[in-house]
């Protein structure tokens, strides 16, 4: 069970948004892709679930190139929560949640039970258009998680969520699974506390990879994020201390 990115370049229109990236997402780990705005995180994630075609290079899931996967079986192996929510028809929440399971409401209700922390049943009878940003995010996460796919790709999953839900989600993602979890994150404290591996991008290039403790040095925080800061590893829960902004 592997997820391999081999010398991948991604283009949006003519602009290269990711250049010659190679990375091995490890099984059983929560990997965070971090980097400032426009560093190519979302583009990488979109390429990982096959929505953005590669300009060159290859992405292999379980030793098979993404393009060679049958779309339906790929959807069964990959649970995805995209960042941008497209305008969609105004489904009832329970209908939307059942779509990944072929519209079966009963199967959906069973699969939602272990996802208690998303408090979805209370939203079932409402329409998507009536939901707040956070509620909508819970539904999107629900659609990704209830597929019970071994691999999860979540683009900024804690966006709009209240802190309790966010932490329960991160807790859930750290449970052992057959595949792995790949998230894009902005909050470096969260990345340091919860993730087994970090992949750091800047302007479409990989600048660092490894365990949080190896990666998040003061030099990197200054160089990549423009922060005068350091990670405090002395306590059990590491904390980011920011003392200034470098311009």
């Amino acid at each position, binding site marked *: 069970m592997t997820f391999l990115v081999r010398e991948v370049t991604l283009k949006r*229109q003519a602009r290269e948004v990711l250049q010659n990236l190679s990375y091995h997402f490890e099984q059983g780990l929560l990997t965070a892709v971090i980097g400032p705005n426009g560093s190519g995180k979302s583009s990488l994630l979109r390429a990982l*679930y*096959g929505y953005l075609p590669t300009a060159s290079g290859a992405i292999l899931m379980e030793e098979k190139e993404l393009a060679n996967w049958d*779309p339906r079986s790929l*959807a069964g192996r990959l649970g995805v929560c995209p960042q941008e929510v*497209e305008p*969609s028809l105004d489904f009832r929440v329970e*209908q939307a949640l059942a779509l990944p399971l072929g519209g079966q409401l009963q199967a959906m209700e069973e699969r939602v039970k272990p996802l208690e922390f998303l408090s979805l049943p209370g939203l079932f009878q409402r329409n998507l258009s009536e939901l707040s940003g956070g509620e909508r995010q819970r539904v999107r996460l629900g659609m990704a998680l209830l597929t019970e796919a071994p691999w999860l790709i979540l683009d900024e999953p804690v966006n709009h969520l209240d802190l309790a839900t966010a932490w329960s989600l991160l807790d859930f993602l750290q449970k052992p699974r057959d595949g792995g979890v790949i998230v894009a994150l902005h909050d470096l404290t969260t990345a340091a506390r919860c993730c087994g591996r970090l992949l750091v991008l800047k302007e479409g290039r990989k600048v660092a990879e490894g365990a949080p403790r190896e990666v998040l040095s003061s030099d990197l925080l200054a160089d990549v994020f423009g922060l005068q800061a350091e990670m405090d590893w002395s306590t059990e829960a590491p904390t980011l201390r920011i003392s200034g902004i470098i311009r």
Partner: protein
Amino acid sequence: MGRGGLGQGLILINGAGFLLAFLLALVVGSGEIAWVEIFGSEPSLGKSLFWNLRFPRAVAAAAVGGGLALVGAVLQSSLRNPLADPFLLGISSAAALGAVSSLAFGHSNLRFPVAIVCALLCLLFLDRTAYRKGAFSTHNLLLAGVAVTYLLSAGTGVVVLLADPTRTRGLMFWLMGGFSTLDPASTLLCALVVGMSGAWLCSISGKLDVLALGDESAHILGLRPHGLRRLLFVTASVVVGLTVATAGGIGFVGILVPHLARLFCGVSHRTLLPLCLLGGATLTLLADTFARTVISPREIPVGLLTALLGAPFFLHQLRRGQGF
């Protein structure tokens, strides 16, 4: 009532309404027809009136109305835009230009294939225009559709001007939409195609639901949106081409019926599509029955009637703020 029960109940009620409207269309009209005549073996005026005029006309009205509502529903959800409709996208105008050209130059039998080909060419052109920088832009599609509608309507106007003046009045009436000139063979073809498209679309209603989530979400759930959307466009062109060649421009059915149906049953295609098929057929049957009886022996073009009834209702719904 259970979840599935409500949708099934609505379909049953609408089915019953459709049957009543169909019977009404057969019974009402100028000329007395005795029921014994219709199924009798002797040829008679009443029998010929029934089988050559009234029955094909009812079938055509049902097929055209059902087809337009069906296509409207599918276009709105696959483009995720409440305004998508064969008329707004220019598909009807293209079909009308094709059909009017065939009629104006005296090849009335060619109007079916020509209308379908024109509708298809128009949709393919719009589809190409809608893809900008690799992504599908619904805004581009609708804007191009509006421009194309104006262009093709102007083209149709030119053709009508160039046509033999003796044919002009017939062309104008036909452009406004109506069922007064029909032949049984084309009616049957239209009904058959609408029925088959309806059956196919209902059978893929789950996929249509997924497509209605948006391209990226559909991709994530294992559906490749571009291919399915092209298939839907081809189906829409064939249905619109046939309905326009059969009955001219019947406006507002394609936009009114799907929105009404969504108010009752929500957006899921499993109940939406049968409701649109039945609702469109019922509405058009009733409108046509009304149009040919109310100032009999003269007729109101059905297209005028559906627009006169449909537009105010639609505006009322908009002002009430009923969403898409």
